[in-house]
């Protein structure tokens, strides 16, 4: 199997810019489940995307990923409504890196800034994405497919190489 193209740099920048993050997985019986994530990083070669989430909130998601590795993640910028979905088949559960816990506060602050124009109070956002460092778990995957999901008739369109869905 040939290695897929690395993620477009603009997409890599978008998904790590403190946008809203939700990750879905499916169990082998065909039931999908989801969890809100609290951080995202991309590997230096842009072939691997890692989502951070509270383990205590992700039990059904982690069980599904352990079983089959299938993941989908939706990234949404609340104000512009720009939305992107990435999918992969090789999801892996990993312990967080030493820097991941330190990235929680900047993520919460950045996400709160994005929601401020919609009159969402900052304490609300901090509560929504709070995670104890010892509760943190990571899921990484190789993005195979990218879909533009910004609402409208073109939502759901699969992005080709070099497209950013903007």
């Amino acid at each position: 199997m040939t290695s897929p193209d690395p993620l477009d740099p603009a997409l890599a920048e978008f998904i790590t810019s403190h946008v809203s993050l939700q990750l879905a997985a499916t169990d082998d019986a065909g039931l999908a489940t989801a969890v809100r994530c609290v951080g995202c990083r991309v590997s230096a070669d842009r072939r691997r995307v890692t989502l951070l989430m509270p383990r205590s909130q992700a039990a059904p998601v982690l069980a599904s990923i352990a079983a089959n590795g299938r993941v989908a993640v939706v990234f949404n910028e609340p104000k512009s409504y720009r939305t992107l979905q990435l999918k992969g088949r090789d999801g892996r559960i990993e312990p967080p890196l030493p820097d991941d816990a330190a990235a929680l506060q900047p993520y919460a602050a950045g996400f709160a800034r994005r929601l401020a124009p919609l009159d969402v109070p900052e304490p609300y956002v901090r509560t929504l994405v709070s995670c104890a460092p010892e509760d943190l778990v990571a899921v990484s995957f190789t993005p195979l497919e990218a879909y533009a999901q910004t609402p409208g008739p073109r939502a759901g369109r699969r992005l080709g190489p070099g497209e950013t869905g903007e």
Partner: protein
Amino acid sequence: MSRALSLDRLRPCLEGIVPSGIATCGVDGMPNITYVSQLMYVDPEHVALSFQFFNKTRENIVANPVATVLMMDPDTAARYRLTIRYLRTETEGPLFERMKAKLAGIASHEGMSDVFRLLGADVYRVQGIEAVPGRESPPVAGGPALLPALRRSVDALAACQSMEALIDSFCTCLTRHFDLQHQLLLMADEAAGRLYIVASRGYAQSGAGAEIPFGVGVIGVAARERVPIRIMFPATEYAYSRMLRDQAAAGGLAERLETVIPLPGLPAPASQLAVPIMAGRRLVAVAYVESQRECHFGYDLEDALVALGSTLGLSMAACLCVETVEGAEAEPEEAAVAAVLAGEAVRVRHYARDGSVFLGDDYLIKGVAGAILWRLLQEYQRSGRTQFSNRELRLDPALGLPEVADNLEARLILLQRRLRDRCDWLGIEKAGRGRFRLDVTRPVTLHVEEAG
């Protein structure tokens, strides 16, 4: 140990304030996740999702109907997973209209008015609810406690002996017990497919007599579909200020414009709620409240007003029955004391075509209320009589009142209030059960206008 989770207690999550995520599974086993514009409470076992576009979620649920929704409480940030199973799509009717109106608010809030158009309300059965652990904020209690407010209001309505007392008491209860400052009460004229304002609170003009056709705006849709319509954000296409502009643009004729009583209303309401007032299966009225604050009217307030409206509707229906019976037994007319007329004679014009009545150059009222006033003035001019009975109006075929449920009392109240709004020399006052008095303090000349 926590009690079992009930959808009834999670309704704040279903207001569309914080977008939910929906995860589905494709035929190839791959997950798909997207944001839902609107997830709505239907009943304790069902939710509805807005269907706006054909997309992967839709493709997936048609093949595999079980999905998971991740939803957030807009006050506490508590998270819940709902396991839901797709049942059907509704493309018209009460649920569709509720969702369409609510979505208009959400779309406008998110700057998506041109994009969000409801194709259908997808109805799902809720198979499971899971509280996702994690930090939560304490819930905030806002507004008056609704059950005590409802109890006091029901008690107040029970003490009312007349249609007028019911109308005023209802409005006072909304202000005093529910802290609702801007409100309209409109009676339904089912035969004409219209509603007319009989009382209002919180506006510079009462708007008594102003009409709204069934199906137009939040109030008209609530009347047509017999379902409460509630919007949490400013929705321009449901605002009556815009409706008036549209009407003006479409009307064309100047004459048409001058026979429209302006609707009172906030220029840009941020929250709107219209509740149909039913007597059994019959629509009696619609109560409308609005606010400048977003997300001001929740599911619980809607429930409280529906419950209060049910008492109001049945009480109004009972009133109409009593009125019809007592009107038939009205005592003979007492000698009226003629008022002293002063000032210049007022030219009163009547157009038989639509029943409209003009006092001088000013439009007053049309329809049945206009026809009633014209009949009273004619009789007054002919015989000097100022005392009238509901019964004689009811028996007059020229007024075109329906034989059952004519709602004459409500029309007289509307006429009385419209006259109070518009002139100081002509009025109608109740004069005992089933009777009323015409108060005239200036001379009048009556003119029938044939031309439209």
